[in-house]
């Protein structure tokens, strides 16, 4: 329904444009200066067959920088209704609590998360029945006219799942604009040494998690089957498709309550406040403060299992007329060069002193083979580590 309204509004704006009416969108920043609102945020789920990881953090004001304080030194435990307890000790990352080994929780049992913060306040999620996530039937990309559509399919013959949620993680190989073969070391403005670069800062990998809530339900379908759900669309020009692209999807079965929760989160965050959209609401999760029932706690802790699968897409399997844009390097078209000529007062050692400003790419030699200078570009154009990592991921072929 929502997309329908978006389309209709777009149509309406089109009509208005024809009539010479320019509707305009402007930023809107009301002065919401409210009291401190550092509510506890609980993120993660109780994994019935794997390692359970829970992240505790605090909310910040909208206007504040996007750094969310971690809630460290809390005591976090998974509890079953029958009284079984599974501690989740804090890891080296502050605010991240993880079971030491993979938990194989007995099915048909209800679980909850219990938290005692360093401040002594107690929180608990509602008991929820452990759900079992069915396998992925089909997870593949399909070439369309202007890009690659990734589909996911799943089903449950017992029709017990009904509510599905996915998360994905994209990883792709890319290169920076220029392959730097040299580097300068420290020294004086008169003389510093340069070496052939050993570390490859040209080939890198970038990984991005999904940021949207992806859920669907089969309640209105005659079978508990998701067929060709449109998980993700990659445009043909995307920099992700320049050599090898990998996508890992994680599938979760949800309870009806958790599904409603994610739907509400989705409604609230992705597009809110247009006249035809549902009213935003204070989304209530299933975590409550045991110390102060009025204290808002954000997050929903479900209990389910995880099914994941990885997909690789090679550039060679895609249409040859797809020209992927090297995202982030669009402006890095040309290189400049500096030659060292002490007679004319050109000192390349001085120019290359600031390694974050100029990075040498190729050497310039005289006919006799002496290096007299280097071509160069900015770090942002040369060092791919600024946009990813040059350490090959373990799963990469």
């Amino acid at each position, binding site marked *: 329904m929502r997309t*329908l309204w978006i*389309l*209709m509004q777009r*149509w*309406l704006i*089109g*009509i208005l444009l*024809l*009539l*010479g*009416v*320019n*509707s*305009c*969108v*402007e*930023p*809107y*920043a009301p002065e*919401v200066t*409210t009291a401190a*609102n*550092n509510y506890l*945020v609980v*993120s993660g789920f109780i994994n019935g067959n794997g390692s359970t990881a829970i992240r505790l*953090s605090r*909310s*910040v*004001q*909208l206007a504040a920088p*996007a750094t969310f304080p971690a809630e460290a030194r809390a005591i976090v435990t998974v509890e079953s209704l029958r009284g079984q307890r599974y501690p989740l000790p804090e890891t080296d990352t502050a605010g991240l609590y993880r079971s030491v080994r993979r938990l194989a929780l007995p099915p048909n049992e209800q679980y909850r998360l219990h938290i005692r913060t360093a401040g002594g306040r107690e929180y608990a999620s509602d008991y929820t029945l452990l759900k079992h996530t069915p396998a992925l039937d089909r997870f593949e990309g399909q070439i369309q006219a202007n890009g690659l559509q990734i589909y996911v399919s799943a089903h449950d013959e017992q029709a017990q799942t009904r509510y599905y949620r996915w998360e994905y993680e994209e990883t792709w190989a890319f290169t920076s604009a220029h392959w730097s073969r040299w580097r300068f070391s420290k020294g004086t403005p008169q003389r510093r040494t340069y070496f052939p670069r050993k570390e490859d800062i040209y080939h890198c990998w970038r990984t991005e*998690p999904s*940021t*949207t*809530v992806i859920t669907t339900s089969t309640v*209105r379908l*005659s*079978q508990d089957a998701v*067929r*060709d759900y*449109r998980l993700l669309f990659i445009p043909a020009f995307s920099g992700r498709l320049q050599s090898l692209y990998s996508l890992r999807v994680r599938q979760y079965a949800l309870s009806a309550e958790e599904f*409603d929760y994610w*739907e509400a989160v989705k409604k*609230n*965050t*992705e597009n809110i*406040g*247009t*006249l*035809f*959209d*549902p*009213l*935003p*609401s*204070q*989304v*209530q999760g299933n975590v409550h403060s045991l110390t102060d029932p009025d204290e808002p706690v*954000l*997050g929903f802790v479900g209990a389910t299992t995880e099914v994941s699968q990885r997909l690789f897409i090679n550039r060679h399997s895609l249409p040859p007329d797809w020209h992927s844009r090297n995202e982030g390097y669009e402006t890095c078209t040309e290189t400049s060069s500096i030659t060292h000529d002490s007679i004319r007062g050109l000192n390349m050692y001085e120019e290359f002193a600031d390694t974050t400003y100029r990075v040498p790419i190729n050497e310039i030699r005289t006919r006799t083979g002496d290096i007299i200078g280097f071509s160069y570009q900015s770090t942002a154009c040369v060092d791919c580590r600024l946009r990813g990592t040059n350490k090959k991921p373990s799963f990469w072929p």
Partner: protein
Amino acid sequence: MKHLFSFLFLGWVLGMATPTRGQQPEPQRVSVSLQQAHFAELVREIEAQVPYRFFFNPAAVDSVVVTVRAQQQPLPEVLRQALQNTPLRFAIDAQNRIYVTRGVTIQTELPDSFFQPEPANALASSPDPADPVPATSRAGSTSAFKLYEIGTGSATGKATLAGHVREAKTGEPVVGATVYVEALNAGTSTDQFGFFSLTLPVGRHEVKIRGIGFKNTRRQVLLRGDGKLDIETEEDITTLREVVIEAEKDRNVASLQMGVERLDVKTMRQVPTAFGETDVLRVVLTLPGVKSVGEGNTGLNVRGGATDQNLILFNDATIYNPSHLFGFFSAFNPDVIKSVELYKSAIPAKYGGRLSSVLDITTRDGNKKKFSGSGGIGPLTSRLTLEGPLVKDKSSFLVGGRSSYSDWILHLLPNESFRQSSASFYDVSAHLSHEFNEKNTVYATGYLSTDKFRLASDTAYKYLNQNASLKWRHTFNNKLYGVLTGALSRYQYDITSQRDASVASELTYQIKQYNAQADFSYLPNAKHTVDFGVSSVLYHVSPGGLTPVGSESLIKTDVLPREQGLESALYLSDRIDVSPRLSVAVGLRYSLYNALGPREVYRYVPGQSKTLNTLTDTVAYGPGRVLATYHGPEYRFSARYSLTAVSSVKASFNRTRQYIHMLSNTTAMSPTDIWKLSDANVRPQVGDQYSVGYYHNFRANTIEASVETYYKSTKDFVDYKGGATLILNRHIETDIVNAVGKAYGVEVMLRKLTGKINGWVSYTYSRSLVQVNQGTPADQVNGGEYYPSNFDKPHDFTLIGNYRFSRRISSSLNFTYSTGRPITLPLAKYYMGSATRVYYSERNAYRVPDYYRADFALNLEGNHKVKKLAHGSWTFGVYNLTGRKNPYSVYFKSVGGQIRGYQLSIFGQPIPTVTYNFKF
């Protein structure tokens, strides 16, 4: 200046003159000697000698020369001599006034036979001997000076005079005209059929008829017994005295009704709109106490009521979706509309079924005398209306249509997805009336409006209103008449989505309503006006159905069972004129609602929040079985006390009950909203309104001032739990909560009705608050405290000003300001699921920026020759003159993990429009 009287004014003066036959003194003698002198010299000579004064039109005597020689001769003799060879004629009256006219002699006295009663036939068109205006009068049948004898009795006491007021040219009834006898301070106004009934003492009276759009007139009546007087009025073509809002001059103070606004179509045409289209609902929105959540939305919020609490009647048939194009247009063709009445308080007992207001839209009756048409060409739509007699003076038809041509524009666009899209709407109204005889008249109305959209060839959306009504009006006698009405209303929408073959589907919704009602008016004597009647409404709601489209679709057919309900009511009201100063209207309406089977009703654990977990039982009811019954009295009371001739105090109380609820969890009224009937789990809404007002007229009733205050409480209206699912929900009661509301406010209005500058200024302070506080915290909103409703806009200021440069050029300037509507704002952000997310404030805790807009329109009329092929007029308008970027909507989006707020202004710049209207 004394010579500037023209003929026409003379006629009026004469009408007022007291006859003084036989008392004329001996004419005075004068001596004048002029040779080929200017007429003015004659005047000077005579006025210098005797105390007589001349009255003439200077233009008529301009080139006249006179020759006269007289010594101490009687004045008439001198004048006769002087004017004998000129086209001028003279007349002398008892007050020593000499009237000089060209060609025609003025009668300074009424003829002997004037006071001899003539047989009562008010419409006799014999030339009136007293009429001083020859030939130029178009009002051949408006005999303002003739004496009509009504009835045959000769007894003393009282008699009832009844009849119709009609327009002479078209034969259409004149609604809301005041018929009164000034000397007795007795009067009434015509109803929707132009009918009036006035009880007066037997004897001679001067009955005055006053109203808008026709020339005020009067009748001399000798009332001997009960009888009939039909009055034809002459159309006021020049619109010289056209006023902005229809009202009898003293209606503001003298009428009993409060909280009612009446607009006629001429008023509506003056108000500038975004697309140059005359728009009924948009003009209604400028009235005090009426608000909407934003521009581009025709959902009315009357005195803090929800958009579903308005009964919108189109010739007595209920309209469920009164808008086109998501609410940017109202779905009524201005050419067929006669007037719009909005009752905000003191709702007459005749009306029921909605809490906040009644918006009664009536069409014209069609020209009974000749075939004519009108139409307009605007930037987005064109319209054409045809009307004419079927049987002259007996029956007429009126057919109006309006259609958009946006489809054609869309297909010209370069963008492919636009070219594959289509969007169109149209509406058609048809009205027939037939007068079988004096006592029986039948009216039939049909109405159809449709909107269709297709977006990039995969989603199609359509909605449709269909209405029909049939009315039979029977006059039993002068004191009693009745109207029998049958009406049918249907509203439906369907959405087809074909983007994915596996989920291709069609979603449908439909509501049908069958009305039958009988209304009677009984006017036993001058002190009482009794209305009574009975009505019944049968509802059929198909709350939603999802069906697969195509063979690949996996969608399983899901059709919600049909809901049925029967709403019946009885009412009786009496308007009592206790004394000339005090009038009281008391009324009682008793309504009864039955939710009918076949239906499966879910039962929930009592006292618990209704959720699927608390569902305990399912009870099946057979066809026609009553599954829930609600009933209750609806009190209607109003009173008026005149403090002085120009000021009064009025008070009213009314209770209303509503058995049908609109479900919408969007802020605006949207076409996908669904209507739900009360049933075992959804109680009817009940509202009480108390209202007090003070009314004062200034400067001979040309300026009206009013202050009205109200307090309203409503209970059991529908609100939603967060993230409620409304479409295809088999247990909707688990997602809705019963809310309690209160609203209060003060409306101050100042209106100037006549003159070159006219218009109104209004200011409203009002609040509208909601409380959702039921047993369990899960069902509470904002912790069970009162919170502002979506349309709580405390301050509202409106100025509608018109300035007429000449008869052909007029302009209007509108100005409107209101507090921004409430909004739920994001308060905090947090990180979860790899993205920054938002935690929202309590519901409606903040407000969007204030709304402010100024519009301007210029109307150019063609020449005013009465007889010509077609009358055209141009309207040039600028909407949003200052280009203020009023937020149409405010929203927050997560863009790349960052939360940003945006404000969309649709009309964020001045929008010029041109419309051409014609009439033939």
